[in-house]
């Protein structure tokens, strides 16, 4: 019976639960779904062909991030800065609403969001990626692939990216100044140092007055607005509220508080996960 009401009158279904202060999947309004993170073992990443990788499972949403390093000439106006290029792919695998082909608008917006988070938080010093000023720098391509789209892909992407960057090691590349010859030494490694860990927390606004943290796909569809707050533990790196219903000042304050709480949780998760194996994809599903 509950399933029929859920399909025919989803808003009514949610209203009945929210009156009691709880959500259909037994979560409180400010609770995140169980998060499982896999960063890979010490001698490699969970994807051994990538320089850094992480897989995250936020409830049913699965996002995998792979970091690849390539070499290029730096821009003339910034000869000592490398590049950091993120891209989010919402492929046809993750949901029936995405068709194969060029990135959909949603994927483009998410890519821009992740690029903004990296730029605002300055978690990777671009000067660290320099090999020979003016001649050769590292380009870090961060490719995020969503494998299962069940809402809140933005938070999953930011967490996967931060986790992957925290475990990225590049081979050492040397440029001989006299001959101009480049040589890669795979035996030596250089680990990427993060200056801070940006973590995001998204809340959906339901019926103009209820805030649901970490919305599922159905909650996102029913919501009248979304708020995403990205913090690095001390400051706010990004505050995004793309339109939607108006928010009172104390509601915004609540979102910001939740983001700081999430930051502490997520950082603990990252430190614990460094060293597990790729069992994340195969652990039992939540509410299939």
């Amino acid at each position, binding site marked *: 019976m509950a399933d029929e009401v859920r399909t025919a009158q989803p808003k009514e279904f949610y209203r009945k639960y929210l009156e009691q202060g709880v959500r259909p999947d037994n979560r409180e309004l400010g609770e995140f779904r169980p998060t499982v993170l896999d960063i890979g073992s010490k001698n490699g990443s969970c994807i051994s062909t990538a320089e850094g990788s992480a897989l995250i499972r936020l409830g049913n949403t699965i996002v995998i991030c792979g970091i690849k390093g390539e070499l290029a000439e730096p821009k003339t106006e910034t000869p000592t800065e490398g590049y950091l290029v993120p891209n989010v792919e919402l492929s046809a695998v993750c949901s029936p609403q995405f068709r194969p082909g060029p990135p959909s608008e949603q994927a483009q917006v998410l890519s821009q969001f992740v690029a*903004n988070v990296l730029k*605002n*938080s300055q978690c990777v010093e671009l000067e660290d990626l320099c090999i020979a000023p003016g001649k050769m720098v590292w380009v870090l391509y961060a490719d995020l692939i969503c494998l299962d789209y069940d809402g809140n892909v933005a938070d999953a992407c930011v967490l996967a990216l931060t986790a992957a960057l925290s475990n990225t090691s590049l081979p050492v590349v040397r440029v001989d100044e006299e001959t101009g010859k480049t040589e890669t030494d795979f035996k030596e490694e250089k680990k990427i140092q993060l200056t801070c860990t940006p973590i995001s927390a998204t809340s959906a606004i339901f019926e103009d007055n209820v805030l649901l943290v970490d919305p599922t796909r159905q909650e996102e569809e029913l919501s009248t607005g979304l708020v995403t707050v990205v913090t*690095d533990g001390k400051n706010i790196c990004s505050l995004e*509220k*793309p*339109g*939607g219903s108006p928010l009172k000042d104390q509601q915004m304050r609540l979102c910001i508080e939740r983001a700081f709480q999430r930051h502490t949780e997520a950082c603990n998760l990252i430190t614990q996960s460094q060293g597990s194996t790729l069992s994340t994809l195969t652990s039992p599903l939540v509410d299939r």
Partner: protein
Amino acid sequence: MEVMETSTNSPCLAALTCVLGDLSQADGSASFTHGNTSVLAATYGPCEVRMSKEILDQATVEVVCKPRVGLPNCADKYRERHIRDLFQATILVNLHPRSSVMIVLQERQDDGGLLATSINAACLALLDAGVSMKFLVAAVTALIDKDGNINLVPEEKPSDVEASASLTIVFNEKDLQVMGVTSSGKFSQEQYDRSVSLCRKATEHVFKFYRESMERKLSKSV
């Protein structure tokens, strides 16, 4: 349609200028300039919508942001999404089910605060077209510099201190609540609260400017 121009000077905001009804083919248009940032907005609708984008009980708001040079890229799509979600909540969409309201924004000049200028231009264009809205919306950009001082942008006299963060906040006229926010750079919660109160005061001037522009337009066209 006759061309109307109004300008206003407020203590903290740079000069606001607008020309309404410049484009003859569009249902509504506004060329809005704030300091040195200028955006031309045109709206079409409510009119027929593509089957794939149809919503059964509401109008679909479509936004296209065109940069000054080159093809639209991810940053333009990001701006489009902000503006679209904002106006989907502002326009009385339930009055026009299964139709579309299209807003096209052409960037003419960008000297800071492009998103805010685009939102204000779009609101004026919708007013010019006579599309029913729940309330008016206005956006202001605040720059937070390294010392923690907050200035509104575009400014009359640009300061020499480098900005460490910027916030674009959109308010509605009904109860001056926050409709939309976007940020860049790092800032603290206290800086955010101060920016909100400063921007809130500034938007009152923008709303007054909207009213004056519409009064001028309607008083002349008989």
